[in-house]
């Protein structure tokens, strides 16, 4: 009996000693996969410029995003989508529509010269610096990365949907295949390789531009100085980093 206990204690002691190196090994396995050493998170701070006055509502960004990021093709799952606004008067509620999120473009709906203003507004995750969605996550499965992208840890997400409700911009959805949350991550797999996002790559008019706020050579600084910039729902103080040029007050 006493020798049994002694054996048990010895084994337990050996196991305890083994956990530290095992943990280190697992961590190296986990963080070391497919990471290019050239990219340093501390040297970047990502955002985007959306020039409403250049958007033609072609839907290229919506299609490119779904292709690049394997977003389900059903017309209610979007990482990015385009809205059409039709504002008859300053005091009137705007008429907003987004057929299939703009995936197939926008069939003409309004008559020319009806006295209203009409325009397209591309929407995506605003990559907030003080995001409500990351604050409500109970397990730390979504977070603001050091380089300014709001990311999701799919292996850790419970699918509880708190963040879906917390996002004031409606940018999150539950992927029906994985039952975990998905959202625009600013094509994190592309921007960390020196590429631009899929939506910016396929936008024909340059209405969307990926910007690196920490890069002094990025033309964004000049653009922000010389244009009248707004973010969506500034009263919420989310620290949104998608900057809109030419944004109408009717856009929410």
């Amino acid at each position: 009996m006493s020798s049994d206990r002694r054996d048990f204690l010895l084994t337990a002691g050996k196991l305890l000693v083994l956990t530290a190196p095992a943990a280190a090994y697992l961590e190296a396995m986990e963080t070391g996969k497919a990471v290019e050493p050239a990219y340093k998170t501390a040297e970047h701070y990502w955002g985007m410029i959306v020039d409403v006055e250049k958007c033609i509502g072609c839907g290229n960004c919506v299609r490119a995003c779904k292709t690049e990021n394997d977003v389900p093709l059903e017309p209610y799952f979007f990482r990015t989508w385009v809205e059409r606004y039709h504002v008859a008067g300053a005091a009137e509620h705007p008429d907003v529509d987004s057929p299939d999120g703009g995936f197939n473009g926008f069939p003409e709906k309004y008559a020319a010269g009806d006295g209203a203003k009409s325009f397209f507004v591309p929407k995506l995750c605003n990559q907030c610096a003080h995001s409500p969605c990351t604050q409500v996550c109970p397990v730390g499965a979504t977070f603001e990365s050091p380089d300014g992208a709001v990311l999701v840890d799919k292996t850790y997400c419970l699918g509880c949907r708190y963040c879906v409700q917390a996002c004031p911009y409606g940018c999150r959805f539950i992927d029906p295949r994985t039952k975990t949350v998905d959202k625009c991550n600013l094509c994190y797999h592309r921007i960390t390789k020196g590429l631009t996002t899929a939506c910016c790559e396929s936008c024909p008019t340059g209405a969307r531009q990926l910007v690196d706020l920490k890069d002094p050579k990025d033309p964004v600084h000049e653009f922000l100085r010389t244009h009248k910039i707004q973010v969506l729902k500034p009263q919420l103080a989310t620290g949104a980093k998608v900057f809109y040029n030419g944004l109408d007050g009717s856009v929410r």
Partner: protein
Amino acid sequence: MHRFLKDKEHLVRMAALFAAGAILFLILQAVLVPKGFGVYGHYRAGALADNRVRAPRFAGRTACVECHTDERDAWKGGKHAGVGCEACHGALAKHAEEPSASNAFKPDPKTICFTCHLANVAKPKNFPQIDPKNHFDGGACDGCHSTHAPDKGPAK
């Protein structure tokens, strides 16, 4: 003092129990908390790498013009110079990596132009728009317009 020493067996037992509890907690913590949690903040540090592993499907225009120099020369300096190749030709990272593996997608010149240039009230006024009722005979647009640089005259 005497009394304390007399009861010390209780204390030793309690201390042992407490130590065992602490060790159990440390073991559970080591097992249950994911590796790298808390390195940058309240999340798993490895999640950053996880978000990077996906392979791009759009190669980017700089990759295209490395080989397609004739198209690059036609496209550069024209009115479509700001339009990326894959905006019309589709995602072609596979083709960029292994040119023989998949052929580049050639869009239909009767329909692809309307993706952008079909008239719509909501489009910016300075953007060139076509109403098929008065500027389209059902033929291919590239019969008259050069697709890579529409302002450089008709396609050759």
